[in-house]
């Protein structure tokens, strides 16, 4: 693996000790049909959102979904880089990064395949909401850092990024709210999964790895348009459709707190 010589050297191969302890992913729900953190399967996680957390940025936001913490800042619109062609529509540049200490496993400084995939999903979800034709010849930069990953990081990142764009006064058709669901068997949809409830195929065997997976949906709540879908794991298509439906409903419910967060932020300015 190529390493960056300018960074602090760490051992090339090292593993988190938690890999070696046994976990039992077959019992995400206990006998009282409660999850490990005491929530009902249907129960959503507590969410906290705040705008204007980074003072130098044009717009910024901080979002907390159970223990998952995401910070996002938006810069621009500014001129496109010299080498790039003239374009009549603006360009949305996103950067999605897990902080090195955010996950159980230490993350490298260079973006891995998972990060670049999530970045692409984030970009595509946001570019359907931003009125890019209003920003010709310019680019808008969105930087997302996951400070602590306790599951549903992508959903929190999309919500935070859209909030930061609104805070930066970038014109959008609608705000984007995202939610994710852990599919656990045909009947159980665990909303806002924690890190231990996320889908790790290596914890499951061939026999019990069916109708298991994670689905994340990004939605524009007032327009009722789905602007991002990402799923993982093998499941029946009817189960997938139902999971998408559950996510859509949950994202719809996020609209009120998002609105409240934005309006309360405006109130501060007036004072």
């Amino acid at each position, binding site marked *: 693996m190529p390493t960056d010589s300018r960074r602090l050297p760490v051992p090339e191969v090292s593993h988190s000790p938690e890999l070696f302890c046994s976990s039992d992913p077959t019992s995400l729900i206990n006998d009282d049909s409660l999850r490990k953190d005491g929530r009902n399967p249907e129960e959503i996680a507590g969410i906290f959102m705040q705008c204007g957390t980074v003072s130098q940025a044009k717009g910024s936001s901080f979002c907390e979904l159970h223990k998952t913490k995401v910070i996002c800042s938006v810069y621009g619109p500014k001129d496109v880089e010299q080498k790039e062609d003239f374009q009549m529509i603006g360009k949305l540049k996103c950067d999605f990064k897990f902080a090195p200490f955010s996950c159980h496993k230490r993350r490298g400084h260079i973006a891995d395949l998972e990060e670049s995939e999530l970045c692409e*999903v984030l970009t595509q979800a946001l570019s359907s909401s931003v009125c890019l034709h209003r920003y010709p010849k310019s680019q808008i930069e969105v930087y997302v850092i996951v400070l602590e990953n306790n599951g549903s990081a992508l959903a929190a990142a999309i919500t935070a990024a859209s909030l930061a764009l609104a805070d930066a006064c970038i014109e959008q058709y609608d705000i984007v709210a995202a939610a994710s669901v852990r599919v656990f068997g045909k009947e159980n949809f665990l909303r806002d999964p924690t890190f231990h409830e996320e889908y790790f195929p*290596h*914890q499951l065997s*061939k026999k019990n790895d*069916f109708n298991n997976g994670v689905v994340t949906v990004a939605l524009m709540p007032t327009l009722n348009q*789905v*602007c991002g879908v990402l799923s993982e794991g093998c*499941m029946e298509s009817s189960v*997938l*459709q139902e999971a998408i439906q559950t996510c859509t409903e949950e994202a719809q419910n996020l609209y009120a707190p998002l609105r409240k967060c934005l309006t309360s932020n405006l109130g501060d300015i007036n004072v």
Partner: protein
Amino acid sequence: MAKAILGDSEKWFIVHGVQDDFRTDGRSCENYRHIELETGILSNTHGSARIRLGSSELLVGVKVELGTPKPQRINEGWLEFHVDCSPNAHPVFQGRGGKELSDNICSMLTRVYRNNTVMDLEALGVIPQKHCWVVHVDVLILECGGNLIDAASIAVKAALYNTGIPNISLTDGDEGEVEINLPDDPEDVKHLKTINCPVLVTLSKIGNRHIVDATDEEECCCSASLVMGVTRRGHTVGVRKMGGGSLDPESVTEMIDSGKKIGRQLHISLDKLLKIEAGMSEDIKQTGYL
């Protein structure tokens, strides 16, 4: 990404055609283009396939190598996907120009193969904690004619079907070490079980209908598409929305239904073709690539 350049009226022509279930090349919305598939064409690989889907052409080579198992799965091997967009296909792919496209295809392939149902990874284990087979799947894009994701997944399945892993034997060596012996006969191989390998189906939304197997002109008219991995039994193994547009929640449901149906049909004809191809390679002498 390399895109065809179309005028507004050309786009409208395509969109209106799709509305009437009649596309510019005469297909209906749910038809694939003609697929040409060949397997076992590269002698230096353990398995290979070439696909031509309309005017898209891809070459897939599979190499197996011995590696050290991952600590979370000590007696299993793994698959690794690499996608290369050759500047032969389009000059914009020069340097890092094709990175976005290749990352997309690569992450989508990794996503649909990342669960326990599609492949028996235990068959790739050699000695627990010490050695396992690592299957490197390299996809090379030779010509872009639209719908590269579907073409890549079909070619990957065909190449994995064609892959033979050397039948190594283990003997006890000195000091409790195990020696690995490679068979002398290169034909002495075991084949991978690819029966549950998924194919990817891309459904592109054009106007208020969705189409499969979009050509590069049609891709220009489409702002959002849904890529889904479908197994032979019709299960979905990974879905992602691509493109900068948005979709109606109802049309997502519709697209998943038709993706499942089309994916199953695709599997039936692909499995049939692969069986013929495997039988043929014994009595027809190979003449080499192209």
